[in-house]
């Protein structure tokens, strides 16, 4: 973990299936409503395609499918969270984005081992609040380009 110092962290809270996730606010550029997405052939199935984000062609990935959950039809609450990691700007499709909260750095706990293993350590930790549990995303891992290539290769193998 980069920072272990005591301090406040602002999180955007969003929903996937019945789980609540958090992403650091300073990595989130904007939250968009669903709009037309152009499919890009030859990409892993979690890559939904690209969309026109105010003149910038932005790749969009379906976070449910990225985490191997079932796909869900778009609803009124579906949102695209545009995050920036390094030079990359990528949109993440989530069921809904409903909250911004402050948490203490010290409240972040390491993810349970089994979860970390199961999900390619895309989880940075968990945050326990009064009556809810937040899963803190490791965005760099979620958008890891190597992962993308690995999945691509896997699919090519399957095709052969």
């Amino acid at each position, binding site marked *: 973990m980069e920072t272990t110092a005591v301090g406040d962290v602002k999180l955007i809270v969003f929903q996937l299936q019945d789980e609540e996730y958090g992403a650091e606010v300073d990595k989130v550029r904007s939250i968009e409503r669903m709009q037309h997405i152009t*499919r890009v*052939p*030859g990409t892993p199935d979690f890559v939904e395609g*690209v*969309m*026109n984000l105010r003149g910038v*062609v932005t*790749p969009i990935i379906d976070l449910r499918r990225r985490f191997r959950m079932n796909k869900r039809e778009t609803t009124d609450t579906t949102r695209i969270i545009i995050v920036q990691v*390094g030079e990359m700007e990528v949109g993440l499709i989530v069921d809904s984005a409903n909250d911004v909260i402050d948490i203490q750095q010290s409240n972040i706990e390491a993810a349970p081992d089994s979860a970390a293993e199961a999900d390619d350590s895309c989880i940075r930790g968990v945050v326990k609040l009064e009556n809810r549990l937040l899963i803190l995303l490791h965005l760099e891992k979620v958008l890891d380009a190597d992962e993308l290539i690995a999945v691509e290769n896997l699919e090519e193998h399957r095709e052969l």
Partner: protein
Amino acid sequence: MDKNQYLDMFIDESTEHLQAINDNLLRLEKTPQDLTIIDEVFRSAHTLKGMAATMGFEDLTNLTHHMENVLDGIRNERIDAGSEVLDIVFDSVDDLEQMVTDVASGGEGRRDVSVIVDRLGRLEQDQPAAAAQSEYETLTFDEYETAVVEQGREQGYIPYQVFVSLSENVVLKAARVFMVFEALEKYGEVIKSVPSAEQLEEEAFDFDFQAIVLSSHAAEEIQAAVLKVSEVASVICAEADMHKPVSQERNITEKESSSTDSAIAERAAEPAKHAPAGKTIRVNIDRLDSLMNLFEELVIDRGRLEQISKELGSSDLTETVEHMTRISGDLQSIILNMRMVPVDQVFNRFPRMIRGLSKELGKQVELVISGAETELDRTVIDEIGDPLVHLLRNSIDHGIESPADRESSGKPAAGTVRLHAYHSGNHVFIEVSDDGAGINKEKVLQKAISGGVVSEEAASQLTDRQIYELLFSSGLSTAEQLSDISGRGVGLDVVKNKIETLGGTVTIDSSPGEGTVFSVQLPLTLSIISVMLVEVQQEKYAVPLSSIIETAIIKRSDIWSVQQQKVIDFRGHVVPLLDLTEFFQVPVAEEETDELSVVIVRKGEKMAALVVHRFIGQQEIVLKSLGDYLKNTKAVSGATILGDGQVALIIDCNALIQ
């Protein structure tokens, strides 16, 4: 003074001066007796020193100072401009370049120059130091000037020597100089100035300068006219003595209390000439980039407007949109033109590189550059340098033979490498050719087979051209000895990839014993391209017009099958058919019909017919990248935003045709 404000200017100008020094030194090496060249080098070095000192770059100033001394020695024929001397000067220029690069990247421009300064110093001392001549106040006239003056005298024109001192708080020196000259020219003809007109324009002087004017008016009139120019401190005008400098006591008119005895810095060898007044301004490249970006937005909106007007069917709106389309078309060509820069910007560093390279490899190489004025978009220019360096190195390392080998095969000892750029249609071609040994096909094949690039059976069936193409496959270098020039594992495959990402192609041709030609084809611009929009099922794709031969409608019954591969007969050629629905795994939404729409595309001499569902039409689009995240998408070279705001992918035909 806020230095940052001037830093960009300093970097630009010092880069230009260094380039000029490099160019002229190379010329000097060829014609050592031509002293006008060394004058030019000297002037560039001097200006550079002045600029560096003003900006406070001590190491730069120090090194330029010593280099200038050596140059001065060459100029006064105290030092012989031999190869060793020039090597040291070249090395110092290298150091200077690195310091300027450092400054440009935000550094302090510091560098340990003691070694090179020492070498330069030794050069100076080896030679008998001539008595330091006073360069000041001596006006020398060459034959031409003397002749002009004599002729003028016969016609009643008197040569006046005019000393002008600007006041020390003058802001725009060059502008004042211009005004002074303008004033002088009302009375006669300015035939010479010290410093030279160029230096005056560049403000490479302190506060004083002098000019020789041929005039039929009286000295007092001229003096009074010049004094009217503001910020001129004093003017002395006297008849010029063609042999002795004018004494300054005569005819002094003080405008302010300022003395005129400060020295005039330089002696100029040429008569004053007024540079042709092509009016140019320097514009920061970032501004051009943002102009381009804004224009791209406009093109997208234009597409949108076109669509809306078509839907609404209002003739007024349609007319206005058409007018706007025309205007933005003009605007586009202007903006694209502004971004065009001559390839010379890339080429000009090659002579220097070739010189070093041929020395290193013990080969004699002459580089002939032609078409350096050919223009390309800046984005292409920025990227094309490395591949060209690689091709040139390749030509010298693998192409040109050693002098002994060349002589034994009846060629001149010095090999020739040609770099030729020209413009044709929507493309610019750059050819790198050498008169070396040509490509050894056997050796290429051997390597390719042992490297597993082709099988032995396949190899026997390859045409010459296909064999040469093998050079572009990765892990193939035919130099037997690995030099550190090429053959470092990064081969011609890197060159090919780079050029293809720029939307260009590269081909090889070679004939044994006569040499090899690499031909690089590049698009004029990268950012706005013409495409044919097509629909595959319900998805829209853009096919670059540059790849399209034509579009056609074919019957299903016209499709043949050759070894499982569907082909069609297209104007006598057997062309493989590629169903884009299948290739791009497009969700099927259309019923199969009897007739198919195909787009015939090509890559070099190969063709393919792409099966689509509908042709939407031709359109100018703005090429956008898919971004880092999706950079490895196959057969898609980018994306664009259509009039309806949706994104359409651009098909990379080069990747489709194998």
